[in-house]
C-alpha cells in the first residue's frame, strides 16, 4: 500500500472510531469535560484569581494527556475484548497507521474540551497570536507523548481488569500530582526537579511561558528554567516515547 493509501486509512480509522464513536456516544464528552472543569471550578472558588490561568492551562494539558488514557483503554479493548486490532493489523494496513488512526480518533474526543479551555484562556488572560501557536504546538506534543505511552502500555495487558488500576496510577502521576493545575512555585525550590520526572511538567512550564504566566526557576537544574531547555526536554521525551512505543509495542505475541 502506498503512503497516500496509508494516510487515507489513518483518516478512515479516525472517522469511524473517533467521529462516529463520538456522534453515537456523546456521553463520552461529558466524562471528558467533567474532571478538568471540576478542577477549574475548585481553583476558581478556592484560589486567588491570579491562579485561574494556571487552572485553564492545566485543563488544556489535562485534556491532551487524557488522550493517553483513552488510547490505552481503547487499544487494549479492541485487542483483548473485540480482537479487532488483530483483524486490522493482519492486512495491508501498516501497524503505525493503525496507531496513528487510533491516536487521532482519541484527539477527536478531546477537541471539544480543548476548544472550551482555549476560549476560556483567551477570556481570562491576553494571549498573542505567536503564543497561541506555541500553545497549539504544545498540544500536539502532549498528544503525541501521551498517545504513544498509552498505546505502549495497552500492548502489555492480558486482561482488561489490569488496565483500570494501571491507568489510574499512570494518568494521575502524569496529570494531577505534577504542577499541571498549580504553579511550579508551589513546590519547594530544592525539590522542583522532582516534578520534571513527569513529562507533563515540561509541557506545563512551556505553556506558562507561552501565555506569559510567572514561571518558577529550578535552582538545582538551571537547564530546566529556560524555555529552550524545556523545549529540548519535551521534544526529546516525546521522540523517546514514540520510539519506545514503536520498538517495544507487541505487534506479535512472544
Amino acid at each position, binding site marked *: 500500500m502506498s503512503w497516500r493509501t496509508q494516510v487515507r*486509512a489513518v483518516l478512515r480509522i479516525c472517522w469511524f472510531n473517533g467521529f462516529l464513536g463520538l456522534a453515537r456516544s456523546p456521553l463520552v464528552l461529558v466524562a471528558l469535560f467533567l474532571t478538568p472543569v471540576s478542577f477549574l471550578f475548585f481553583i476558581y472558588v478556592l484560589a486567588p484569581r491570579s491562579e485561574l490561568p494556571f487552572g485553564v492551562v492545566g485543563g488544556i494539558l489535562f485534556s491532551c494527556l487524557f488522550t493517553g488514557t483513552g488510547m490505552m483503554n481503547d487499544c487494549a479493548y479492541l485487542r483483548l475484548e473485540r480482537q479487532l486490532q488483530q483483524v486490522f*493489523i493482519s492486512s495491508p494496513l501498516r501497524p503505525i497507521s493503525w496507531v496513528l488512526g487510533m491516536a487521532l480518533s482519541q484527539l477527536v474526543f478531546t477537541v471539544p474540551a480543548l476548544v472550551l479551555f482555549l476560549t476560556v484562556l483567551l477570556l481570562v488572560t491576553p494571549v498573542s497570536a505567536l503564543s497561541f501557536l506555541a500553545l497549539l504546538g504544545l498540544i500536539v506534543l502532549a498528544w503525541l507523548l501521551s498517545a504513544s505511552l498509552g498505546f505502549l502500555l495497552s500492548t502489555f495487558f492480558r486482561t482488561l481488569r489490569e488496565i483500570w488500576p494501571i491507568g489510574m496510577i499512570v494518568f494521575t502521576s502524569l496529570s494531577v500530582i505534577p504542577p499541571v493545575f498549580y504553579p511550579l512555585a508551589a513546590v519547594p525550590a530544592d525539590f522542583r526537579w522532582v516534578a520534571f520526572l513527569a513529562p507533563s511538567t515540561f509541557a506545563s512550564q512551556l505553556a506558562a511561558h507561552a501565555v506569559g504566566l510567572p514561571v518558577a526557576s529550578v535552582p538545582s537544574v538551571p537547564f530546566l528554567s529556560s524555555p529552550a531547555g524545556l523545549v529540548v526536554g519535551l521534544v526529546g521525551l516525546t521522540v523517546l516515547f514514540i520510539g519506545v512505543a514503536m520498538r517495544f509495542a507487541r505487534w506479535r505475541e512472544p
Partner: protein
Amino acid sequence: MDALRARSLSKVYDGRRGRVAALDHVDLDIRTGQLFGFLGRNGAGKTTFIKIASGLLIPTSGSVELFGVDVRTRVREVRERIAIVPQEGKPFYHLTPREHVEEYLLVRGASSETARDTTDRIVRAMGLTPYASTPAMFLSGGLQQRTLVAMVLASGAEFLFLDEPTLGMDPFARRQVWDVIRHAVRAGSTVLITTHYLDEAEQLTDELAVIEGGHVLYKGSAEALKSKVRREVRLHFDGGFSTQELTPFGEVYAERGGLTVMTTRSRVEELTRAALERRIAVTVGPVTLEEAFLTLVGRSIEEDEAEGGAT
C-alpha cells in the same frame, strides 16, 4: 504451488504448571486455492497455528511460509496478502454492518467505488440486508459474528484465516456463510478454516487436518478419514443391549437414550438379526465424520494416557 508450508512448527508456552507445548513439530502444506479445514478439540493447537501463520504470534521453533514468504522474517509482505477472522472476535459496538465492511475495505486500500459495490454484494450474500444500518450493539451475537465474517470475506485476500467463523450462528446463516466462503475460493482465495461443526468441515472443505495435543494426527479428505477408522457402518439400538455385548463388534457409545456401535459391513447382518430377535428397533447408516473424529482423537488420548501411565 503451496499457499502455506509449515515445517517442524512448535510453540511452547511457559505457564504456572510448567512448559506446555501447544504445537509440537507440526508439518503442514496447504495448496493454493484449497479450502482447508482444521479440526481438533479445545486447546488442541488450532488457534495457535493460525496466529503463528498469520504473523500474530512468534513460534518457539520451526518455520511457516505463506506463498513462499517467511512469516517470521517478512511479516509485512505476508500481511499484504491475508485477512483473518479471529476466534471470538467482535465488531465495533457503534458501527453498522455496512459501515464495518465498507470502512474495512477502505482501510485495506480499496477505492470508494469498489468498497461500496463489494459492500452491497457481501451484505446481501450474508443475509445482513435487514440489519445493514443497525449499530452492532443492537444485533444478536450471531449477527455480530456474521458482520465480522462479512468484513473479512469481502476483502478478497489471497489467504483467508477463518477461526471458527460460524460460531453462534443458526443453521441458515451458516449455510449463507458457506456459500460466501465457496465464492471466495472460486474467486481465487485460499482458505484455512477451523470449526467444531464437523458437518461444516465435511460439507465445505477439500481437505482437512485433525490436530490433538499439538500434533497433526491426520491430513487428508473427510471420506478418507472415515475409512481410516476402519468402521464403515453405525448401528443405533433403542435399548435392549448392554455395552459389554456390543463392544466386541466395535466402538460403542451412548446416544439418544440407546447405544450406537460403529462396526464393519460384515457384522451388520449378525447385529440386525440379534436386534430383530429381541424385537428392538435398529437404525443403520454410514459412519459420520464426527464419529471418525471422535474415534481418531479418542485413540490418541488413550495412547497418551497409556504412555503417561507407563512412565
